Protein backbone atom coordinates (compact mmCIF):
# COMPACT_ATOMS: atom_id res chain seq x y z
CA UNK A 1 0.00 0.00 0.00
CA UNK A 2 1.35 3.44 -0.88
CA UNK A 3 1.72 6.08 1.77
CA UNK A 4 0.61 9.03 -0.27
CA UNK A 5 0.95 11.42 2.67
CA UNK A 6 4.67 10.82 2.89
CA UNK A 7 5.09 11.18 -0.84
CA UNK A 8 3.18 14.44 -1.03
CA UNK A 9 4.98 15.99 1.93
CA UNK A 10 8.37 15.33 0.35
CA UNK A 11 10.87 18.00 -0.71
CA UNK A 12 9.79 20.73 -3.19
CA UNK A 13 11.54 19.04 -6.10
CA UNK A 14 9.64 15.79 -5.95
CA UNK A 15 11.32 12.93 -7.71
CA UNK A 16 8.68 10.37 -6.82
CA UNK A 17 5.44 9.32 -8.45
CA UNK A 18 3.50 11.62 -6.09
CA UNK A 19 5.06 14.66 -7.75
CA UNK A 20 3.14 13.83 -10.88
CA UNK A 21 -0.23 13.85 -9.12
CA UNK A 22 -0.90 17.54 -9.96
CA UNK A 23 -0.18 16.75 -13.60
CA UNK A 24 -2.78 13.98 -13.55
CA UNK A 25 -5.28 16.38 -11.96
CA UNK A 26 -4.51 18.92 -14.66
CA UNK A 27 -4.94 16.27 -17.37
CA UNK A 28 -8.38 15.36 -16.02
CA UNK A 29 -9.25 19.06 -15.79
CA UNK A 30 -8.06 19.84 -19.34
CA UNK A 31 -9.66 16.83 -21.02
CA UNK A 32 -12.87 17.38 -19.05
CA UNK A 33 -12.99 21.01 -20.14
CA UNK A 34 -12.35 20.13 -23.80
CA UNK A 35 -14.87 17.28 -23.89
CA UNK A 36 -17.66 19.20 -22.16
CA UNK A 37 -17.17 22.28 -24.35
CA UNK A 38 -17.33 20.12 -27.49
CA UNK A 39 -20.50 18.44 -26.23
CA UNK A 40 -22.19 21.73 -25.34
CA UNK A 41 -21.37 23.34 -28.70
CA UNK A 42 -22.58 20.23 -30.52
CA UNK A 43 -25.83 20.52 -28.56
CA UNK A 44 -26.32 24.27 -29.09
CA UNK A 45 -25.53 24.52 -32.80
CA UNK A 46 -28.16 24.06 -35.52
CA UNK A 47 -28.38 20.89 -37.59
CA UNK A 48 -29.11 21.70 -41.23
CA UNK A 49 -27.00 19.26 -43.15
CA UNK A 50 -27.19 18.81 -46.91
CA UNK A 51 -25.34 16.61 -49.39
CA UNK A 52 -23.16 19.45 -50.69
CA UNK A 53 -22.25 20.60 -47.22
CA UNK A 54 -20.91 17.18 -46.30
CA UNK A 55 -18.59 16.94 -49.29
CA UNK A 56 -14.89 17.68 -48.84
CA UNK A 57 -14.17 21.31 -49.68
CA UNK A 58 -12.01 21.79 -52.77
CA UNK A 59 -12.18 25.52 -53.47
CA UNK A 60 -15.37 25.31 -55.46
CA UNK A 61 -14.35 22.71 -58.04
CA UNK A 62 -16.07 19.30 -57.80
CA UNK A 63 -14.47 17.14 -55.14
CA UNK A 64 -12.58 14.07 -56.35
CA UNK A 65 -13.21 11.92 -53.32
CA UNK A 66 -10.55 10.15 -51.27
CA UNK A 67 -7.55 12.29 -50.36
CA UNK A 68 -5.41 9.40 -49.20
CA UNK A 69 -3.22 8.87 -52.22
CA UNK A 70 0.53 8.19 -52.49
CA UNK A 71 2.47 11.22 -51.30
CA UNK A 72 6.01 12.53 -51.67
CA UNK A 73 8.45 10.24 -49.83
CA UNK A 74 10.21 13.35 -48.47
CA UNK A 75 7.77 13.73 -45.58
CA UNK A 76 8.33 10.15 -44.50
CA UNK A 77 12.08 10.62 -44.82
CA UNK A 78 11.98 13.69 -42.58
CA UNK A 79 10.04 11.73 -39.96
CA UNK A 80 12.59 8.88 -40.02
CA UNK A 81 15.53 11.28 -39.85
CA UNK A 82 13.88 13.09 -36.96
CA UNK A 83 13.57 9.87 -34.97
CA UNK A 84 17.24 9.03 -35.66
CA UNK A 85 18.59 12.43 -34.69
CA UNK A 86 16.26 12.93 -31.76
CA UNK A 87 17.49 9.71 -30.20
CA UNK A 88 21.03 11.04 -30.57
CA UNK A 89 19.99 14.36 -28.99
CA UNK A 90 18.45 12.46 -26.06
CA UNK A 91 21.91 11.03 -25.30
CA UNK A 92 23.16 14.57 -24.68
CA UNK A 93 20.77 15.12 -21.75
CA UNK A 94 22.53 12.86 -19.22
CA UNK A 95 25.86 14.26 -20.38
CA UNK A 96 24.67 17.85 -19.89
CA UNK A 97 23.61 17.14 -16.30
CA UNK A 98 26.93 15.48 -15.38
CA UNK A 99 29.42 17.16 -17.66
CA UNK A 100 31.20 19.21 -14.97
CA UNK A 101 32.18 16.08 -13.05
CA UNK A 102 33.14 14.25 -16.25
CA UNK A 103 35.62 17.01 -17.13
CA UNK A 104 37.77 17.06 -20.24
CA UNK A 105 37.68 13.27 -20.67
CA UNK A 106 33.92 13.39 -20.99
CA UNK A 107 34.19 16.35 -23.33
CA UNK A 108 36.56 14.40 -25.60
CA UNK A 109 34.12 11.51 -25.69
CA UNK A 110 31.23 13.81 -26.56
CA UNK A 111 33.34 15.35 -29.32
CA UNK A 112 33.72 11.84 -30.73
CA UNK A 113 29.96 11.29 -30.45
CA UNK A 114 29.24 14.60 -32.18
CA UNK A 115 31.69 13.58 -34.91
CA UNK A 116 29.67 10.41 -35.52
CA UNK A 117 26.51 12.52 -35.45
CA UNK A 118 27.97 14.86 -38.08
CA UNK A 119 29.17 11.99 -40.29
CA UNK A 120 25.59 10.74 -40.41
CA UNK A 121 24.40 14.28 -41.05
CA UNK A 122 26.81 14.85 -43.95
CA UNK A 123 25.81 11.47 -45.37
CA UNK A 124 22.13 12.41 -45.56
CA UNK A 125 23.00 15.83 -46.98
CA UNK A 126 25.19 14.24 -49.68
CA UNK A 127 22.46 11.66 -50.38
CA UNK A 128 20.22 14.67 -51.11
CA UNK A 129 17.69 13.57 -48.53
CA UNK A 130 17.11 17.20 -47.57
CA UNK A 131 16.68 18.61 -51.07
CA UNK A 132 13.08 19.64 -51.62
CA UNK A 133 13.22 20.83 -55.22
CA UNK A 134 12.77 18.05 -57.77
Amino acid at each position, binding site marked *: *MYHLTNILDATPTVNTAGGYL*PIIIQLVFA*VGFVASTLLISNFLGPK*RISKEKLEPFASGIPSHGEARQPLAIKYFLVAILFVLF*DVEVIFFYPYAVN*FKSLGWTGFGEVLLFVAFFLIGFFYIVKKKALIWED
Partner: protein
Amino acid sequence: MTLLTIDWSLIIEKLVLIAVVVLGSLVVALYSTYAERKVAAFMQDRLGPNRAGPFGLLQPLADGAKFFFKEDVIPVLANKWLFILGPTIAMSAALMTSAVVPWGNHIEIGGRIISLQIADINIGVLYVFGVVGMGVYGIMIGGWASNNKFSLLAALRGASQVISYELPMGICMITLIMLSGSLSLKDKVEQQMSSGHLWNIVYQPLGFVIFLICAFAECNRTPFDLAEAENELNMGYHQEYSSMKLGFYLFAEYINMLISSAVIVTLFFGGYDIPFLDESKLNPNTAAILGIIALMAKVVFFIFLFMWVRWTIPRFRYDQLMNLGWKKLLPLALINMLVTAAVILWLHK
Protein backbone atom coordinates in the same frame (compact mmCIF):
# COMPACT_ATOMS: atom_id res chain seq x y z
CA MET B 1 -6.75 2.18 4.00
CA THR B 2 -3.69 4.39 3.80
CA LEU B 3 -4.96 5.93 0.56
CA LEU B 4 -7.48 7.87 2.64
CA THR B 5 -4.68 9.76 4.35
CA ILE B 6 -4.14 11.92 1.27
CA ASP B 7 -3.21 15.50 2.15
CA TRP B 8 -6.51 17.06 1.06
CA SER B 9 -5.39 20.64 1.61
CA LEU B 10 -2.57 20.07 -0.88
CA ILE B 11 -4.98 18.62 -3.43
CA ILE B 12 -7.37 21.56 -3.02
CA GLU B 13 -4.48 24.00 -3.23
CA LYS B 14 -3.31 22.39 -6.48
CA LEU B 15 -6.85 22.29 -7.88
CA VAL B 16 -7.27 26.03 -7.30
CA LEU B 17 -3.89 26.70 -8.88
CA ILE B 18 -4.71 24.51 -11.89
CA ALA B 19 -8.08 26.20 -12.37
CA VAL B 20 -6.49 29.64 -12.20
CA VAL B 21 -3.68 28.74 -14.59
CA VAL B 22 -5.85 26.92 -17.15
CA LEU B 23 -8.67 29.46 -17.15
CA GLY B 24 -6.11 32.28 -17.05
CA SER B 25 -4.36 30.93 -20.12
CA LEU B 26 -7.73 30.67 -21.88
CA VAL B 27 -8.48 34.32 -21.09
CA VAL B 28 -5.01 35.39 -22.24
CA ALA B 29 -5.53 33.39 -25.45
CA LEU B 30 -8.91 35.05 -26.02
CA TYR B 31 -7.45 38.50 -25.58
CA SER B 32 -4.42 37.61 -27.70
CA THR B 33 -6.81 37.27 -30.65
CA TYR B 34 -8.09 40.77 -29.84
CA ALA B 35 -4.52 42.06 -29.46
CA GLU B 36 -3.50 40.44 -32.73
CA ARG B 37 -6.28 42.21 -34.60
CA LYS B 38 -5.48 45.52 -32.91
CA VAL B 39 -1.73 45.16 -33.63
CA ALA B 40 -2.45 44.24 -37.24
CA ALA B 41 -4.81 47.20 -37.53
CA PHE B 42 -2.22 49.56 -36.05
CA MET B 43 0.47 48.34 -38.44
CA GLN B 44 -1.83 48.68 -41.44
CA ASP B 45 -3.17 52.06 -40.34
CA ARG B 46 -6.68 50.78 -39.63
CA LEU B 47 -8.86 50.85 -36.51
CA GLY B 48 -9.39 47.16 -35.84
CA PRO B 49 -12.33 45.78 -33.83
CA ASN B 50 -14.11 48.70 -32.11
CA ARG B 51 -17.84 47.93 -32.04
CA ALA B 52 -18.42 45.37 -29.27
CA GLY B 53 -17.98 47.27 -26.02
CA PRO B 54 -15.53 50.12 -25.34
CA PHE B 55 -12.56 49.87 -27.79
CA GLY B 56 -14.07 46.59 -28.99
CA LEU B 57 -12.97 44.91 -25.75
CA LEU B 58 -15.92 42.51 -25.78
CA GLN B 59 -15.10 41.28 -29.30
CA PRO B 60 -13.21 38.11 -28.18
CA LEU B 61 -16.14 37.14 -25.93
CA ALA B 62 -18.53 37.56 -28.85
CA ASP B 63 -16.25 35.46 -31.06
CA GLY B 64 -15.97 32.76 -28.40
CA ALA B 65 -19.72 32.61 -27.89
CA LYS B 66 -20.25 32.43 -31.65
CA PHE B 67 -18.27 29.19 -31.83
CA PHE B 68 -20.84 27.60 -29.51
CA PHE B 69 -23.77 28.43 -31.76
CA LYS B 70 -22.29 27.35 -35.08
CA GLU B 71 -23.28 24.20 -36.90
CA ASP B 72 -20.97 21.29 -36.26
CA VAL B 73 -20.31 19.66 -39.65
CA ILE B 74 -18.49 16.34 -40.04
CA PRO B 75 -17.88 15.56 -43.75
CA VAL B 76 -19.13 12.18 -45.01
CA LEU B 77 -15.68 11.01 -46.10
CA ALA B 78 -14.07 11.86 -42.75
CA ASN B 79 -13.38 9.33 -40.00
CA LYS B 80 -15.81 10.52 -37.38
CA TRP B 81 -13.94 9.64 -34.18
CA LEU B 82 -10.51 10.68 -35.42
CA PHE B 83 -12.08 13.91 -36.66
CA ILE B 84 -13.24 14.64 -33.11
CA LEU B 85 -10.00 13.38 -31.55
CA GLY B 86 -7.79 15.79 -33.52
CA PRO B 87 -8.89 19.10 -31.96
CA THR B 88 -9.29 17.39 -28.57
CA ILE B 89 -5.61 16.39 -28.57
CA ALA B 90 -4.47 19.77 -29.90
CA MET B 91 -6.34 21.70 -27.20
CA SER B 92 -5.57 19.31 -24.32
CA ALA B 93 -1.85 19.31 -25.17
CA ALA B 94 -1.85 23.10 -25.27
CA LEU B 95 -3.54 23.26 -21.84
CA MET B 96 -1.15 20.70 -20.31
CA THR B 97 2.16 22.47 -20.97
CA SER B 98 1.52 25.11 -18.31
CA ALA B 99 1.92 22.50 -15.54
CA VAL B 100 5.70 22.83 -15.20
CA VAL B 101 6.11 26.56 -15.82
CA PRO B 102 7.00 28.41 -12.59
CA TRP B 103 4.52 31.30 -12.62
CA GLY B 104 5.99 32.82 -9.49
CA ASN B 105 7.98 31.93 -6.40
CA HIS B 106 5.71 31.01 -3.48
CA ILE B 107 3.11 32.71 -1.33
CA GLU B 108 2.39 32.18 2.37
CA ILE B 109 -1.17 31.95 3.63
CA GLY B 110 -1.53 31.29 7.36
CA GLY B 111 1.96 29.84 7.68
CA ARG B 112 1.41 27.49 4.75
CA ILE B 113 3.83 27.83 1.85
CA ILE B 114 2.09 27.53 -1.51
CA SER B 115 4.31 27.12 -4.55
CA LEU B 116 3.07 28.95 -7.65
CA GLN B 117 4.15 26.11 -9.89
CA ILE B 118 1.70 23.28 -10.49
CA ALA B 119 4.27 20.49 -10.55
CA ASP B 120 7.99 20.97 -10.00
CA ILE B 121 9.07 17.68 -11.53
CA ASN B 122 12.78 17.12 -12.02
CA ILE B 123 12.39 16.53 -15.75
CA GLY B 124 10.41 19.71 -16.47
CA VAL B 125 12.22 20.41 -19.72
CA LEU B 126 11.57 16.91 -21.11
CA TYR B 127 7.91 17.22 -20.05
CA VAL B 128 7.55 20.40 -22.14
CA PHE B 129 9.06 18.66 -25.16
CA GLY B 130 6.89 15.60 -24.66
CA VAL B 131 3.64 17.54 -24.45
CA VAL B 132 4.56 19.85 -27.34
CA GLY B 133 5.26 16.67 -29.32
CA MET B 134 1.70 15.50 -28.56
CA GLY B 135 0.44 18.65 -30.30
CA VAL B 136 1.78 17.24 -33.59
CA TYR B 137 -0.71 14.38 -33.25
CA GLY B 138 -3.52 16.93 -33.05
CA ILE B 139 -2.48 18.45 -36.38
CA MET B 140 -1.73 15.12 -38.06
CA ILE B 141 -4.85 13.26 -36.91
CA GLY B 142 -7.12 16.21 -37.71
CA GLY B 143 -5.64 16.67 -41.18
CA TRP B 144 -5.75 12.98 -42.00
CA ALA B 145 -9.24 12.34 -40.62
CA SER B 146 -10.71 15.23 -42.69
CA ASN B 147 -9.99 13.20 -45.85
CA ASN B 148 -9.47 16.40 -47.78
CA LYS B 149 -6.43 16.87 -50.02
CA PHE B 150 -5.65 20.35 -48.74
CA SER B 151 -5.98 19.31 -45.11
CA LEU B 152 -3.78 16.28 -45.57
CA LEU B 153 -1.01 18.20 -47.35
CA ALA B 154 -1.13 20.96 -44.74
CA ALA B 155 -1.00 18.44 -41.89
CA LEU B 156 2.04 16.72 -43.42
CA ARG B 157 3.76 20.05 -43.84
CA GLY B 158 2.93 21.11 -40.32
CA ALA B 159 4.06 17.83 -38.78
CA SER B 160 7.39 17.65 -40.61
CA GLN B 161 8.04 21.32 -39.83
CA VAL B 162 7.38 20.91 -36.12
CA ILE B 163 9.52 17.81 -35.75
CA SER B 164 12.36 19.33 -37.80
CA TYR B 165 12.61 22.38 -35.57
CA GLU B 166 12.44 20.31 -32.41
CA LEU B 167 16.02 19.13 -33.00
CA PRO B 168 17.83 22.51 -32.81
CA MET B 169 15.45 23.51 -30.00
CA GLY B 170 16.42 20.42 -28.01
CA ILE B 171 20.13 21.09 -28.48
CA CYS B 172 19.68 24.69 -27.28
CA MET B 173 17.93 23.30 -24.24
CA ILE B 174 20.92 21.02 -23.55
CA THR B 175 23.20 24.05 -23.57
CA LEU B 176 20.99 25.65 -20.91
CA ILE B 177 21.01 22.46 -18.84
CA MET B 178 24.81 22.69 -18.84
CA LEU B 179 24.53 26.14 -17.24
CA SER B 180 22.16 25.10 -14.44
CA GLY B 181 22.90 21.37 -14.14
CA SER B 182 19.21 20.55 -13.78
CA LEU B 183 16.20 19.83 -15.97
CA SER B 184 13.73 21.52 -13.63
CA LEU B 185 12.42 24.87 -14.86
CA LYS B 186 12.27 26.20 -11.30
CA ASP B 187 15.99 25.48 -10.83
CA LYS B 188 16.68 27.41 -14.01
CA VAL B 189 14.94 30.52 -12.63
CA GLU B 190 16.73 30.18 -9.28
CA GLN B 191 20.09 29.81 -11.04
CA GLN B 192 19.44 33.07 -12.91
CA MET B 193 18.27 34.83 -9.74
CA SER B 194 21.18 33.78 -7.54
CA SER B 195 23.73 36.52 -6.83
CA GLY B 196 26.65 36.69 -9.24
CA HIS B 197 24.56 35.22 -12.05
CA LEU B 198 23.03 37.14 -14.91
CA TRP B 199 20.09 36.11 -17.07
CA ASN B 200 20.88 33.30 -19.49
CA ILE B 201 20.44 35.63 -22.46
CA VAL B 202 23.85 37.13 -21.54
CA TYR B 203 25.58 33.73 -21.66
CA GLN B 204 23.57 32.29 -24.55
CA PRO B 205 22.71 35.01 -27.09
CA LEU B 206 23.09 32.64 -30.05
CA GLY B 207 21.14 29.92 -28.24
CA PHE B 208 18.36 32.44 -27.63
CA VAL B 209 18.13 33.40 -31.31
CA ILE B 210 17.98 29.73 -32.37
CA PHE B 211 15.42 28.95 -29.68
CA LEU B 212 13.25 31.91 -30.67
CA ILE B 213 13.26 30.94 -34.37
CA CYS B 214 12.35 27.37 -33.42
CA ALA B 215 9.55 28.62 -31.15
CA PHE B 216 8.05 30.49 -34.12
CA ALA B 217 8.21 27.31 -36.20
CA GLU B 218 6.81 25.13 -33.40
CA CYS B 219 3.81 27.44 -33.00
CA ASN B 220 3.16 27.46 -36.78
CA ARG B 221 3.46 31.23 -36.74
CA THR B 222 4.49 33.49 -39.63
CA PRO B 223 7.07 33.43 -41.21
CA PHE B 224 6.76 29.65 -40.76
CA ASP B 225 2.99 29.21 -41.08
CA LEU B 226 3.34 26.87 -44.06
CA ALA B 227 0.63 24.61 -42.64
CA GLU B 228 -1.82 27.49 -43.03
CA ALA B 229 -0.58 28.95 -46.31
CA GLU B 230 -3.98 30.09 -47.55
CA ASN B 231 -2.85 30.92 -51.10
CA GLU B 232 -1.69 27.32 -51.60
CA LEU B 233 -3.83 25.27 -49.23
CA ASN B 234 -7.05 27.25 -48.72
CA MET B 235 -7.08 27.38 -44.94
CA GLY B 236 -4.74 24.63 -43.82
CA TYR B 237 -5.14 21.43 -41.84
CA HIS B 238 -8.34 22.62 -40.12
CA GLN B 239 -10.31 23.68 -43.17
CA GLU B 240 -13.02 21.00 -42.84
CA TYR B 241 -13.61 21.98 -39.22
CA SER B 242 -16.39 24.17 -37.96
CA SER B 243 -17.92 25.24 -34.66
CA MET B 244 -15.96 24.65 -31.43
CA LYS B 245 -13.60 22.13 -33.06
CA LEU B 246 -12.26 24.89 -35.30
CA GLY B 247 -12.24 27.17 -32.27
CA PHE B 248 -10.02 24.70 -30.39
CA TYR B 249 -7.46 24.58 -33.20
CA LEU B 250 -7.32 28.38 -33.28
CA PHE B 251 -7.20 28.74 -29.48
CA ALA B 252 -4.53 26.06 -29.21
CA GLU B 253 -2.31 28.18 -31.43
CA TYR B 254 -2.70 31.20 -29.15
CA ILE B 255 -2.21 29.18 -25.97
CA ASN B 256 0.95 27.67 -27.47
CA MET B 257 2.12 31.19 -28.17
CA LEU B 258 1.55 32.14 -24.53
CA ILE B 259 3.29 29.04 -23.22
CA SER B 260 6.29 29.33 -25.52
CA SER B 261 6.64 32.98 -24.50
CA ALA B 262 6.54 31.86 -20.85
CA VAL B 263 9.14 29.13 -21.51
CA ILE B 264 11.43 31.55 -23.38
CA VAL B 265 11.15 34.05 -20.51
CA THR B 266 11.82 31.31 -17.94
CA LEU B 267 14.83 29.96 -19.78
CA PHE B 268 16.50 33.15 -20.98
CA PHE B 269 15.04 36.16 -19.15
CA GLY B 270 15.01 35.07 -15.51
CA GLY B 271 11.34 34.04 -15.31
CA TYR B 272 9.74 35.91 -12.42
CA ASP B 273 13.03 37.65 -11.54
CA ILE B 274 12.82 41.45 -11.26
CA PRO B 275 16.04 43.03 -12.52
CA PHE B 276 18.17 45.08 -10.05
CA LEU B 277 16.03 44.08 -7.07
CA ASP B 278 16.85 41.63 -4.30
CA GLU B 279 13.55 39.81 -3.78
CA SER B 280 14.72 38.05 -0.61
CA LYS B 281 14.58 41.37 1.29
CA LEU B 282 10.87 41.78 0.56
CA ASN B 283 7.90 40.16 2.26
CA PRO B 284 7.47 36.82 0.39
CA ASN B 285 3.89 37.58 -0.64
CA THR B 286 4.78 41.01 -2.04
CA ALA B 287 7.77 39.49 -3.80
CA ALA B 288 5.59 36.75 -5.32
CA ILE B 289 3.00 39.21 -6.62
CA LEU B 290 5.67 41.53 -8.04
CA GLY B 291 7.31 38.45 -9.57
CA ILE B 292 4.10 37.39 -11.32
CA ILE B 293 3.70 40.93 -12.68
CA ALA B 294 7.32 40.91 -13.90
CA LEU B 295 6.84 37.51 -15.58
CA MET B 296 3.61 38.58 -17.26
CA ALA B 297 5.18 41.83 -18.48
CA LYS B 298 7.98 39.86 -20.14
CA VAL B 299 5.50 37.34 -21.56
CA VAL B 300 3.32 40.10 -23.00
CA PHE B 301 6.37 41.54 -24.73
CA PHE B 302 7.08 38.19 -26.40
CA ILE B 303 3.45 37.71 -27.45
CA PHE B 304 3.68 41.17 -28.99
CA LEU B 305 6.91 40.10 -30.74
CA PHE B 306 5.08 37.10 -32.25
CA MET B 307 2.44 39.49 -33.65
CA TRP B 308 4.94 42.12 -34.71
CA VAL B 309 6.84 39.52 -36.75
CA ARG B 310 3.63 38.12 -38.22
CA TRP B 311 2.58 41.46 -39.66
CA THR B 312 6.09 42.40 -40.82
CA ILE B 313 7.81 39.37 -42.40
CA PRO B 314 6.32 37.45 -45.34
CA ARG B 315 6.07 33.66 -45.36
CA PHE B 316 9.04 31.46 -46.35
CA ARG B 317 8.94 28.85 -49.08
CA TYR B 318 8.83 25.25 -47.91
CA ASP B 319 12.35 24.34 -49.10
CA GLN B 320 13.72 27.48 -47.43
CA LEU B 321 12.06 26.46 -44.19
CA MET B 322 13.53 22.96 -44.28
CA ASN B 323 16.98 24.18 -45.32
CA LEU B 324 17.04 26.70 -42.49
CA GLY B 325 16.04 24.10 -39.92
CA TRP B 326 18.23 21.19 -40.97
CA LYS B 327 21.26 22.74 -42.65
CA LYS B 328 21.70 25.96 -40.69
CA LEU B 329 20.11 25.85 -37.25
CA LEU B 330 21.00 22.22 -36.43
CA PRO B 331 24.81 22.52 -37.04
CA LEU B 332 24.81 25.99 -35.47
CA ALA B 333 23.11 24.69 -32.32
CA LEU B 334 25.61 21.79 -32.11
CA ILE B 335 28.59 24.16 -32.39
CA ASN B 336 27.02 26.45 -29.80
CA MET B 337 26.65 23.50 -27.44
CA LEU B 338 30.26 22.34 -27.83
CA VAL B 339 31.70 25.85 -27.43
CA THR B 340 29.60 26.43 -24.31
CA ALA B 341 30.72 23.12 -22.80
CA ALA B 342 34.40 23.89 -23.54
CA VAL B 343 34.16 27.42 -22.09
CA ILE B 344 32.46 26.23 -18.89
CA LEU B 345 35.03 23.45 -18.42
CA TRP B 346 37.88 25.89 -19.09
CA LEU B 347 36.56 28.41 -16.55
CA HIS B 348 36.16 25.76 -13.87
CA LYS B 349 39.71 24.42 -14.16
